[in-house]
């Protein structure tokens, strides 16, 4: 597994190239290709040595630069042709276009952005209206048992063998559930039973839920029969 660090300093190979052009005070219409290629490759080496993941596009541009360089080294075949094709032309065009958009994006960034610089009225959220339209039905212990049975039946065989007696007490589990609910407001039944707890953990959790329901500390609801069972705190904490 390769460790990848997203490099946000450069927004891409064109950005790096523009940076180098600016840094060296180079005329963009007359780029000394050999020099800039050398600089560019040097930067790639530094980035690589920092163990940063280098997007393929950086290498594509590197090969483009080398290709242009080699073309410029070749003697022009027909000396009589006055306005010969400059191998840098396409690259310069691309750089200018990119630079224009880069400026536009900086301009956009300077605007008063909603939710960053300006804010609209904090409405009593409409989600409350949505929530009221869903009518929850309180579920019976019966339905809980059915959901429990399903979870246990999907557990792997080896998990059933694990017996680890004093790892977890019922009251620990109760406290854990209450704490989670206080934090998260509501949780699905499956969230609480969770995976990777082993059969014993699941059973303890289930018993804790039953106990809490009996004490009326929590309530279980579902929107429709066989729907997701949600557990809510029945008391405000």
């Amino acid at each position, binding site marked *: 597994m390769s460790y990848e660090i997203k490099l*946000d300093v450069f*927004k*891409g190979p064109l950005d790096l190239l523009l940076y180098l052009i600016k840094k060296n005070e180079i005329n963009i219409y007359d780029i000394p290709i050999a020099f800039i290629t050398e600089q560019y490759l040097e930067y790639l080496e530094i980035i690589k040595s920092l163990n940063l993941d280098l997007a393929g596009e950086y290498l594509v541009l590197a090969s483009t630069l080398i290709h242009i360089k080699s073309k410029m080294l070749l003697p022009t075949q027909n000396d009589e042709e006055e306005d010969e094709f400059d191998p840098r032309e396409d690259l310069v065009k691309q750089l200018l276009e990119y630079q224009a*958009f880069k400026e*536009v994006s900086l301009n956009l960034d300077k605007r008063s*952005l*909603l939710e960053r610089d*300006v*804010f609209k*009225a904090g409405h009593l959220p409409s989600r409350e209206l949505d929530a009221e339209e869903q009518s929850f039905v309180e579920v019976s212990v019966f339905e809980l048992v059915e959901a429990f049975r399903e979870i246990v039946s999907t557990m792997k065989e080896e998990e059933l063998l694990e017996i680890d007696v004093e790892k977890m007490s019922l009251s620990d589990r109760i406290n854990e559930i209450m704490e989670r609910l206080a934090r998260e407001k509501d949780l699905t039944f499956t969230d609480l039973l969770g995976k990777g707890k082993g059969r014993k953990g699941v059973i303890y959790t289930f018993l804790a839920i039953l106990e809490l329901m009996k004490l009326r500390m929590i309530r279980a609801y579902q929107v429709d029969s066989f729907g997701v069972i949600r557990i809510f705190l029945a008391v405000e904490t």
Partner: protein
Amino acid sequence: MKDMKAIVESLIFVSEAPLTVDKIREVLGEVERKEIRDVLYDLVKEYDERNGGFCLEEVAGGFQFRTRDDLGVWVKKLKGVKPMMLTPAAMETLAVVAYRQPVVKSEIDRIRGVDVSGALKGLLEKKLVRMVGRRDVPGRPMLYGTTKRFLEVFNLNDLSELPTLRELRELGQ
């Protein structure tokens, strides 16, 4: 209509999104658009002069109350939320979509010189960019454009308000 200014004001106040003249007209019934517009500009001016905690702005084809620019720091302190951040890469991608729309992904890739898949996905999720159709060429690639939400977030009334850049115009398509 008696009290029209107060009614219009209350309607804007309770709207989640910028409220359009048409929508106001729908609620008020038979009132001239011009009359509504007059009331709206009156309100804009009034809030402007008052220079209070928020003002009324025309944005994304409608009207919306927004906090005053320079008070953002305090609001952030209250809300303690991280502001909506667009990375430079996302901002550049958005700029290309905004100015070149409708545009295919390969064109954005070409201009930015990188694969913009990630940035584009983020912009779609933030509902700043949407798919607007398909280009009628082999493979029928998806075309992208900006959303109304983009106008709202960037405080623009419509796309023509996008700042023009000389260089961009010169380069053309």
